[in-house]
């Protein structure tokens, strides 16, 4: 600890330190880490081997080698970012579902709050420590894959690739942060850790499995007739995309698609007029970000909302269980 730091900030440091230690040593984290490492390395392996297979085929104009590692799949294994969209929520939930209620059930809450620290330090440190762990995990995972790719291909990533990969990391981080904050919120509302875990997981499953089914049903019910005008079809498409984007995983997929594929011009349907005369090629980084700005904002906003709710309810919660 740096000397001369104000008291509350050093207490914050102490708490974060402890939380990170707890996470890293816990079995749930180790198991998840193993799963994530295995799947991500497998998907990276498959995409790199695919790239090596086609090594004599020159890259198409504008294709970026290092971005392909994260998006390419050989058909057998989904690509890296798809895996993250599956496993990220699980990681977030695992790190958050017992954040507060375990303090209550272990009866440590009164002990910690009787120390001279502000009450919000506890919840802030829980969330920030978990986000730190997630951030470090994702960053190192990405760096490992990049390193392997550099070793295997003998090429170095360009500036723009690094930028795009960093932005992808950031979006993945926000995405997992949403699930983390959601499960922390449930850990405050429900006094049983099992209840909060199951609730978070059922919401995750709902968005993973049932929500697409429901959207499909709605889409079938509303599908315009074969003779509908172009305008009708377009508005129908926009509507269906709109309701799909209520799912956080869809926001994540949209954002990563645009960030990792510079060729992507739009996430929705384009009319012939719009496509006419377009030059194929890469969008600048900033333009890609602009396409998915709404998605990124949505992810950040929803995790903020969950955190604010958690904060509010935690600060008002009785110390006695």
């Amino acid at each position: 600890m740096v000397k001369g730091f104000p008291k509350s900030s050093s207490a914050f440091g102490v708490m974060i330190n402890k939380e990170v230690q707890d996470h890293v040593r816990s079995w749930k984290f180790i198991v998840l880490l193993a799963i994530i490492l295995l799947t991500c390395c497998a998907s990276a392996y498959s995409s790199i081997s695919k790239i090596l297979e086609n090594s004599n085929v020159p890259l198409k104009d504008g294709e970026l080698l290092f971005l392909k590692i994260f998006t390419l799949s050989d058909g057998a294994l989904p690509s890296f970012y798809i895996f993250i969209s599956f496993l990220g929520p699980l990681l977030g939930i695992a790190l958050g579902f017992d954040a507060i209620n375990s303090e209550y059930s272990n009866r440590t809450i009164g002990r910690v709050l009787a120390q001279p620290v502000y009450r919000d330090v506890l919840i802030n440190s829980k969330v920030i420590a978990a986000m730190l762990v997630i951030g470090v995990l994702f960053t190192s995972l990405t760096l490992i894959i990049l390193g392997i790719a550099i070793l295997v291909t003998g090429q170095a990533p360009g500036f723009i690739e690094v930028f795009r990969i960093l932005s992808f990391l950031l979006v993945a981080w926000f995405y997992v942060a949403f699930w983390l904050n959601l499960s922390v919120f449930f850990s405050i509302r429900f006094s049983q850790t099992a209840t909060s875990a199951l609730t978070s997981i059922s919401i995750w499953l709902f968005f993973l499995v049932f929500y697409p089914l429901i959207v499909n049903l709605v889409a079938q019910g509303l599908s315009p007739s074969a003779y509908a005008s172009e305008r009708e079809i377009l508005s129908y498409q926009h509507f269906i995309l709109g309701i799909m984007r209520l799912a956080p995983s869809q926001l994540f997929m949209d954002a990563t698609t645009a960030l990792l594929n510079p060729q992507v011009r739009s996430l929705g349907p384009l009319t012939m007029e719009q496509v006419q005369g377009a030059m194929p090629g890469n969008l600048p980084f900033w333009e890609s970000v602009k396409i998915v700005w709404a998605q990124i904002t949505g992810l950040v906003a929803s995790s903020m909302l969950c955190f604010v709710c958690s904060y509010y309810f935690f600060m008002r919660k009785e110390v006695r269980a």
Partner: protein
Amino acid sequence: MEPIIATKKLSKSYTNVLAVDNLDLSIYQGEVFGLLGPNGAGKSTTILMLMGLCEPSKGVAEVCGYNANTEPLEVKKKVGFLPDNVGFYDHRSGLDNLEFIGKLNGITQNEVRDKAYQLLEKVGLQNDAHRKVGAYSKGMKQRLGLAEVLIKDPQVIILDEPTIGIDPSGVKDFLELIVSLSRHERITVLFSSHQLHQVQRVCDRVGIFVKGKLLACGDLQTLSKNLFQTDAFASEFQLGTSVEDISTFKMKLKERFPDISRVEEQERNIWVVNSKKDIRAELCDFLVSKKHNILLLREKHYGLDEIYQQYFEGGSL
């Protein structure tokens, strides 16, 4: 002398339930104060309000001169609190747990380990410092809790039901440790309990707390004097055989000793006589003259048991 803990009209109401009702309490420096009461009397709620962990509905709680509700951080710096049925991070060692609390209190990394070892030694856990707390017995956890309370060098220690679940010899050791601390370092101790004998043994003063109200407060002598005002002297005697006619026996006793205020058979063949002065010698003569076998004759002292019982029965002073 200024009280170190003072509450003024402190009240806490939950929906429909008044947990603490206009509590006025003063505790002075260096005192060992026992808060006595049955379960659900509002002891824990009062303690939480003193620690600023629970907001009073009305009134003020001041600890070490700070308002516990508006300046809880200052209070928490000076007061060590051991909650009811305290829990620890079970997957960590006792030393780790203790160091964590020490660091939260602003003790630097370099000093915290030495201090933690010292305290573990003080509470007798030096050989278990590196064992996980999950493997500790209840008594060991309680002692670790005390070490945590002490690591911040408190002026006041507040213990909520500290002796629940510890075996009698453990309770004795634990309480003696607390009292010796209080005596040596002039630490004020407030603890709540519903176990009378422990409180009787170690407290300077007790407060009897029922249904959110402090019914009586003071040392044991004062309490018993208040409670049994009319009974200046109480004699207790046990007879070998039972008295045939109780009312005649009572009458005869009163005839012989006009200043007797009360005669009562408390248990089978055990009688208590209240009088203005010591009548044991005469009583003995009298009983012998009536051919009763006397198995026991002594002055009756009122302990906390009787006081406690009286308050619950009578409900008020």
